[in-house]
């Protein structure tokens, strides 16, 4: 029994931040309909500020008040007023993309401002890790743990009291049920929304400040590890119950602690199975929870008055101008390829090859997001599966690059098919959550297994060999190979996009109810596109790995995957050109020798610029490339009309 307590109590105390984050996620979702991935970033910013203020010589209480009660609510107001209130009515996919952008910005901007100097763990708000307050059996509970539990339970009780028993709470609950009815009653819903954002931001901030002292260094990855069980707890609470989410947050922490404690020590289970428990629970919750398939349905009786608008990507009519622009694009591509092949230095050739290989992976995002209208956060994981399979087959079986890449692509397709079967009932937010859980499972568990990800040293990748000649990564021959594979995958994506499957997917994207009424099966169309996307990502991953020489778990992290999605959404998720340009932009931003200017690292600036550009996804989901192309066609058509009118007169 005392052994059980020794797992339960630390688990309960460790569950405080995730319980708070879970409540914050549910509060934001119910009040605004946004699944706020940025909650992890808000917690990180508050934790970082707390640690930096203490490092700067300020008192603990001053640092806590500034971080939690000043900075966090301010951040909530800014996010609502400047961003989320402006995309009300946008699709859930668009809202998730925007929250991912905010997350990336909250993680990148501090690094841009203060560099990457480490920030060490600050002291806790209350108590000390080494002071034992009391014993439960033979297990000592530190004053830090006790303080965290008291603060968490007190704050959640206060939030519950405000929501249940005050006028503000009543109005907030009414705003959750139906903002339209509330406004018809003469109460403005806008300040209530902002108040919800402030409150949830305070809860996220408090979670961040409670996490910081438990770490060695304040890093974004540590906050991810708390965010996952928090999302899981929110799912268990059905994204509606604050108390349910809070209880589930504590319960999951205790469950993971007990499971980790009872798993046999120094065995495969403790090393491998234990860390994966939260992600598996999240995946199981998303698939099995009856409410998840209906996450899109609104309980608002007036929801049909202004339902989420469909941002239709209306292509310009096929005029002479549009053919001209396409022809010009092709000519520029051919001329550019010739210049590149003849004139570029090996280092630049390498960057370009990397960009095109990334473009191949990004074509999988084009299929899932641009064609199917869904959002998958696991495309980097499929790329990783392809790369690791290719590398391991080369290492252990002696397969060459091409056989390994095909096998990797096949394996990635197989895994995406398995995930697709699990996700057959899911769409929108639920699919985002499932792919998020899978990506984290790969990042934190599966890729960490040495027989998959090669451990600390990674996996040596094979180099392609054509007619007995090895293609070196910085050679022009390798560049030609990446171009050829991109062309092959690009044609595949293009044919699917303009063919019957693409037509069906477009109809599903714009009205699933209408599509099903004429016989379109959403399950089959989305499944097929998801599997092909997995295969393309796996192939691109192998090529990317071969260019890098060695691939390790760090090559395909969840953060990398999220940034890739944001980059594609910024530049263009509906066309092969968008995927290619996004690949090149990301490749340039991630080169280790990217120029450092007076303003800081150029690569980091490119990432921040891409993130800012992706904010426009809510209004223009077709992305920058298509917006520019459509604009050019309109201008040329207008000019043509003008000149033809003059010549007639």
């Amino acid at each position: 029994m005392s052994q059980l307590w020794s797992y339960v109590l630390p688990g309960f105390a460790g569950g405080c931040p995730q319980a708070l984050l879970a409540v914050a996620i549910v509060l934001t979702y119910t009040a605004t309909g946004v699944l706020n991935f940025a909650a992890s970033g808000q917690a990180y910013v508050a934790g970082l500020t707390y640690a930096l203020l203490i490092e700067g010589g300020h008192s603990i209480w001053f640092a806590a008040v500034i971080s939690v009660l000043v900075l966090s609510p301010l951040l909530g107001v800014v996010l609502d007023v400047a961003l989320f209130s402006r995309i009300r009515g946008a699709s859930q996919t668009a809202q998730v993309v925007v929250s991912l952008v905010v997350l990336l910005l909250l993680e990148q901007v501090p690094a841009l401002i203060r560099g990457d100097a480490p920030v060490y763990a600050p002291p806790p708000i209350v108590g000390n890790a080494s002071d034992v307050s009391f014993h439960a059996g033979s297990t000592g509970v530190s004053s830090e743990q006790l303080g965290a539990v008291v603060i968490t339970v007190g704050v959640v009780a206060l939030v519950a009291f405000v929501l249940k028993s005050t006028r503000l709470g009543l109005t907030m609950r009414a705003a959750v049920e139906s903002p339209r009815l509330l406004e018809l009653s003469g109460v403005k819903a806008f300040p209530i929304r902002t108040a919800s954002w402030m409150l949830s931001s305070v809860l996220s901030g408090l979670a961040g400040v409670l996490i910081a002292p438990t770490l060695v260094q304040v890093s974004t990855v540590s906050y991810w590890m708390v965010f996952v069980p928090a999302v899981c707890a929110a799912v268990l609470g059905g994204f509606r119950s604050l108390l349910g989410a809070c209880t589930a947050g504590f319960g999951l922490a205790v469950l993971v602690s007990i499971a980790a404690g009872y798993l046999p020590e120094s065995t495969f289970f403790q090393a491998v199975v234990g860390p994966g428990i939260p992600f598996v629970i999240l995946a199981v919750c998303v698939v099995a929870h009856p409410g998840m398939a209906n996450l899109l349905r609104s309980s608002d009786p007036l929801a049909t008055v202004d339902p989420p608008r469909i941002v239709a990507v209306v292509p310009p009519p096929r005029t002479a101008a549009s053919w001209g622009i396409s022809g010009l694009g092709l000519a520029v591509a051919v001329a550019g390829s010739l210049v590149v092949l003849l004139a570029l230095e090996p280092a630049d050739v390498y960057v370009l090859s990397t960009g095109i290989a990334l473009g191949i992976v990004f074509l999988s995002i084009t299929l899932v997001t641009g064609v199917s209208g869904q959002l998958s956060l696991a495309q980097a994981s499929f790329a990783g599966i392809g790369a690791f399979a290719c590398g391991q087959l080369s290492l252990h079986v002696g397969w060459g690059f091409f056989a390994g890449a095909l096998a990797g692509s096949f394996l990635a397709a197989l895994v995406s098919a398995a995930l697709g079967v699990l996700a057959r009932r899911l769409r929108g937010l639920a699919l985002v959550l499932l792919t998020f859980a899978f990506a984290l499972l790969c990042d934190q568990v599966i890729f960490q297994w040495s027989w998959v990800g090669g451990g600390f040293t990674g996996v040596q990748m094979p180099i392609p060999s054509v007619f007995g000649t090895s293609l070196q990564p910085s050679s022009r021959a390798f560049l030609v190979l990446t171009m050829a594979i991109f062309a092959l995958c690009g044609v595949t994506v293009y044919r699917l996009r303009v063919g019957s499957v693409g037509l069906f997917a477009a109809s599903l994207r714009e009205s699933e109810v209408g599509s099903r009424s004429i016989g379109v099966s959403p399950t089959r169309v989305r499944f097929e596109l998801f599997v092909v996307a997995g295969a393309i990502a796996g192939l691109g991953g192998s090529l990317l790995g071969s260019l890098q020489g060695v691939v390790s778990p760090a090559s395909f992290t969840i953060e990398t995957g999220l940034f890739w999605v944001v980059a594609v959404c910024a530049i263009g998720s509906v066309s092969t050109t968008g995927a290619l340009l996004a690949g090149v932009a990301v490749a340039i931003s991630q080169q280790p020798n990217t120029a450092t200017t007076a303003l800081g690292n150029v690569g980091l600036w490119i990432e921040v610029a891409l993130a800012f550009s992706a904010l426009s996804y809510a209004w223009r989901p077709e992305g920058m490339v298509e917006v520019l192309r459509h604009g050019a066609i309109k201008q040329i058509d207008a000019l043509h009309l003008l000149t033809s009118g003059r010549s007639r007169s």
Partner: protein
Amino acid sequence: MTSRLDVRGVTTSFGGVHAVSNVSFTLGAGEQLSIIGPNGSGKTTLLDGIAGRVPFDDGMVLLDGVQLSGTPEHHARRGIARTFQRTQIFPSLTLADHLLVALRARHGSPRLWRDLLRVTTRTSGEREAIATCLGHVGLAGKEDVIVGTLGLGTCRMVELARALVTAPSVLLLDECSSGLDGDEASLLVDVVLETSARTGMSVVAIEHDLSVVAAFGGEVLVLVNGVLLGQGHLDEVLANPEVASAYLGARP
């Protein structure tokens, strides 16, 4: 002789509230049936159930003597087409693509490999079917117009054309004249009746506008609080004091 559509004792409830309670009716080939009743009386739920969008707790629906079950897409492929009270169109697709999706979906999902081997262009048969159908609904020559740029009246005709192009056995219309002016509504009714007479398609229409109900002809079914209150020709139904009280608000 087997009825085209046979609805037997269907019942469905949401959280203890009976939306549709033991409703039965039959409809022969080429016949029309209008469903009237106050808002919230279960008309759309009944239509959703027939189309497979809402499962019935009890009862069954038979099409040409064969029981229907499964998802809306299965019902659609078996020959049930429908339109919606709030139009469910695809704003970024052209009129021709709307009809093309419906034509191809009627015969099942597309083969992925066909798209991969070569771009599936419209066949001459598909082009002809689309042009003919658009001609019937008064939209001839507008194949390449983007539907998102059209007004409500035209969108209703597009939705109707999308349903008709599959040559359905039964057409379900949910308040198809809502938001249309008199001319547009009568054009829509004419198209439906002409198609029904030509192909033997049966029609079930939910309507609030009694002039449209009269134009459809056929039997009228009155639904109040999910219960069948009356059935017969429009004049007979309106003469029923219970119907007048529940639907028109008149004293019995």
